[in-house]
């Protein structure tokens, strides 16, 4: 007989209810642009979505769990379910307003939003109502810092050890720094940094050629390293160096570990320079920019030097931080350019940020570990340790990192293969697959401007890729293991 593991399902359902209520509150914000731009149809579709979400939320939150304790299993289950349930309800505005017609499209678009990927199936963004575009940007802003992290910050039921499990399941990176004694304080600290950065960026963008609506939307997708834009030509629409540079800076900040930004903001600026990950991240970004600027210059693209510097730099930062804003067609850079993008997308930015990818933390570890392994070929009895951010990583953590990299790479290849099987060219398939897993949003070839032409199966596969990429593999895949459900 199978002995099922004891999981506190009722608590998970109740928390899902609470989270849906929070989503419903977030859905209220797009009503403002709907009202300002006189879009009654969009407003109606938002209202229906709010009703459906809030209704289900209330229903779920009426469930009374017998016990309030939650452990690891509930933590993983809740985190994975929240992201799926949020996407299911978050796609309602697209469906009700008719902006997207099929469930596969709407699910893909919403998952791409919450996971801050930024791949789109829309072909003409400018024709979509402003209210819906605002919701599309908001999903990225909300997903960037983390749905559960937000809830931990405000809901006392999660300010317990169980909440910590959920926090660890959602926040990216190898290890998670606790900033303050209680988990809700840590979550509040992270959100505070996020909100301050958001406000600063909105004002700076507004000062440039953008209007307030566009500033807000681009801000929400830039700081969360998401990459949805309100224009068909993305950032190129504004054709302003000022805007480009502001976005480069904030995309870069979005890729820095938020715990680190918090330490800096409470008056420990030196911690920035002491942090290995941050130094490597900066160095890697600068090197990649330099290489791409060189490629562009040698190929003699663009008319003037300002373009030759700012445009490649924008694409590089956009790729490394997994934002995926477009400015120029990087496909014109030739095979070497695409290859460089592959590397940037694979590496990603710092753990604990809003960015996707493997994360620089793991790369720093990997390189230091490789160095050690070669050293030990010559001196087999030496005991070597790997230190990242002046913290020694134990062999258990090392093993976990290696497993992570292996599964991540395997997933990229498997999803790429599914795409290839439906007739997508190999390079484009692999590029799109990596783009989904690293939450970037760039496309190549057939997926360059929109993913709409792909068959539904590819959209589901890519949606899954985005989810496991955002939750860093383990949280989702553990649900498919027998051990999770059986005692």
């Amino acid at each position, binding site marked *: 007989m199978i002995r099922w593991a004891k999981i506190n399902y009722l608590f998970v359902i109740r928390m899902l209810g609470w989270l849906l209520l929070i989503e419903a509150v977030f859905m209220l914000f797009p009503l403002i642009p709907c009202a300002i731009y006189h879009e009654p149809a969009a407003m109606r579709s938002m209202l229906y979505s709010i009703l459906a979400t809030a209704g289900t939320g209330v229903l779920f939150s009426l469930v009374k769990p017998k016990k*309030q304790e939650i452990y690891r299993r509930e933590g993983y289950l809740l985190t994975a379910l929240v992201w799926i349930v949020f996407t299911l309800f978050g796609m309602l505005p697209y469906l009700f307003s008719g902006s997207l017609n099929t469930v596969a499209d709407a699910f893909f678009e919403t998952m791409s939003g919450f996971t801050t990927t930024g791949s789109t199936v829309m072909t003409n963004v400018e024709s979509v109502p402003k209210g819906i575009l605002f919701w599309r940007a908001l999903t990225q802003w909300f997903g960037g810092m983390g749905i559960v992290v937000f809830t931990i910050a405000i809901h006392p039921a999660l*300010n*317990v*050890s169980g909440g*910590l499990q959920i926090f660890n399941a959602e926040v990216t990176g190898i290890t998670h720094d606790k900033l*303050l004694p209680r988990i809700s*304080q840590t979550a509040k600290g992270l959100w505070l940094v996020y909100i301050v950065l958001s406000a600063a960026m909105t004002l700076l963008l507004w000062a440039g050629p953008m209007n307030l609506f566009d500033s807000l939307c681009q801000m929400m997708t830039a700081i969360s390293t998401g990459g949805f834009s309100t224009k068909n030509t993305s950032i190129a629409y504004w054709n302003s160096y000022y805007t480009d540079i502001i976005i480069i800076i904030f995309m870069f900040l979005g890729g820095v570990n938020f715990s680190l930004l918090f330490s800096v903001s409470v008056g420990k600026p030196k911690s920035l320079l002491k942090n290995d990950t941050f130094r490597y991240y900066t160095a890697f970004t600068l090197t990649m920019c330099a290489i791409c600027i060189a490629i562009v210059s040698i190929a003699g693209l663009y008319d003037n030097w300002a373009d030759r510097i700012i445009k490649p730099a924008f694409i590089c930062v956009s790729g490394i931080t997994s934002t995926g804003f477009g400015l120029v067609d990087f496909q014109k850079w030739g095979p070497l350019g695409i290859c460089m993008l592959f590397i940037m997308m694979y590496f990603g930015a710092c753990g604990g940020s809003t960015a996707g990818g493997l994360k620089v933390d793991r790369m720093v570890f990997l390189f230091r570990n490789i160095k050690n392994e070669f050293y030990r070929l010559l001196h087999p009895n030496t005991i070597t340790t790997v230190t990242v951010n002046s913290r020694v990583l134990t062999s258990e953590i090392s093993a976990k990192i290696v497993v992570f990299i292996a599964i991540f790479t395997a997933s990229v290849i498997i999803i790429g293969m599914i795409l290839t099987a439906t007739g997508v060219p190999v390079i484009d398939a692999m590029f799109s697959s990596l783009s989904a897993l690293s939450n970037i949003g760039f496309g190549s070839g057939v997926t360059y401007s929109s993913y709409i032409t792909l068959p539904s199966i590819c959209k589901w596969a890519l949606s899954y890729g985005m989810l496991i990429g955002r939750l860093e593999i383990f949280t989702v895949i553990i649900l498919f293991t027998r051990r999770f459900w059986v005692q």
Partner: protein
Amino acid sequence: MKIVISGAGEVGKHLAKLLSNEGQDIIIMDEEQSKLECLESYNLLPQLGNPSSFKTMKKVGVDGADLYIAVTPSETRNVVSCSMAKHLGAKRTVARIDNYEYLNTNNRDYFAKIGVDHLVYPEYLAAKEIITALQHSWVRNWFELFDGELIVVGVKVRENARLVGMPLKELYTLSNYMHISAIRRKNETIIPRGEDKVEANDIVYIASTQEFVGNIIDLCGKKKVDVKKVMVMGGSRIAVQLAKMSSDKYKIKIIESDFVKAQELAVSLPECTIVNADGRDIDILKNEGIDDCDAFVTLTDSSETNILGCLTAKEYGIRKTIAEVENIQLITEAESLNIGTALNKKLLASSRIFQILLDNDSTNAKCLALVDAEVAEMVVKEGSKVTREDVKDLDLPREITIAGLVRDGHGMLVHGDTRLQAGDHVVIFCLSGSIRKAERLFNKK
């Protein structure tokens, strides 16, 4: 409240978990990464660093701490780090010490001057606990609340006890001088209602007052044993402390297996009889007269030896056995094995620190924790929900009961027709985790 704990040993860890569950902001520091690792999954902040370095102290923010607790193994280090913490701005400090002398009231001013507000000496607490247990040998636990105005006893009842099998409703009509507040049956704790019955082998927690507590003994089928002769196995520091504090009351015989240690004991404790032998050897125990001892106390370093020693003594008909059990996991086992009282230095030290902490916070003074229930002292606020109706009409949650109250300095028990008044100090029993519910009852307007 922000609390900094230095030293992630047994006491430190236990306190950290306890206080974190209570909703306090806990930072715990230790020099060893391995000691902190098992705390990672709790809702608190572990910090690696030397607890007596100014740098670490500033890093963890001792200046804003409401309480600084030093519980590293080293006494001097605890005292020094408390002094440093106070200097840096910690509001109150507690140090764990190993020296009885420090507790002397004459020395208190000195420690206050160097910034150590409270001293906790676990061996002293343990010795005191043993003496209480010997004085009230018929109970398992004896708690005095509000300076002895109310008394809560935990008693294991056998088939012969008169209260077994009688619904509590009827029991109260016979005797209104007691209140059965909780029943521990096998592995669960029950907050009983009127229809519930006490069964044989339950441990019942009864609240009473000083003048009536004597009546309970008979009702529980116990006899008051006047303890005279005490046999102690293991000459540990607790044994020495016990002997120093109570050799005028009891005749103490200490069995110590280590020859050198036994000789030292003989020199320092002339009033006691010291035997150099292995306390697990039954022949020796017989020769030393275990048959006419009133109590048997095991205080060796090994919890297992202590438990086994007590079991052997039980077989020889000793009524009162007390075992030092340092492995927290073994305590419930020991209790189910009929060990009279299980003693744990760490739990004693942490509950003492807990009390110090709560003296600060007078709204909710939790005083003691049973295995899965809590006993709390609360003050009834003006206009709170509980003052509006008689206790029987209050519709209290099932997991909470009001055991007794102190009004104008006098202890009294609570029955169905008692009406609480603002300013009453009440003692409540509640199952673990429902203390917040209880708080709401007493505070809400």
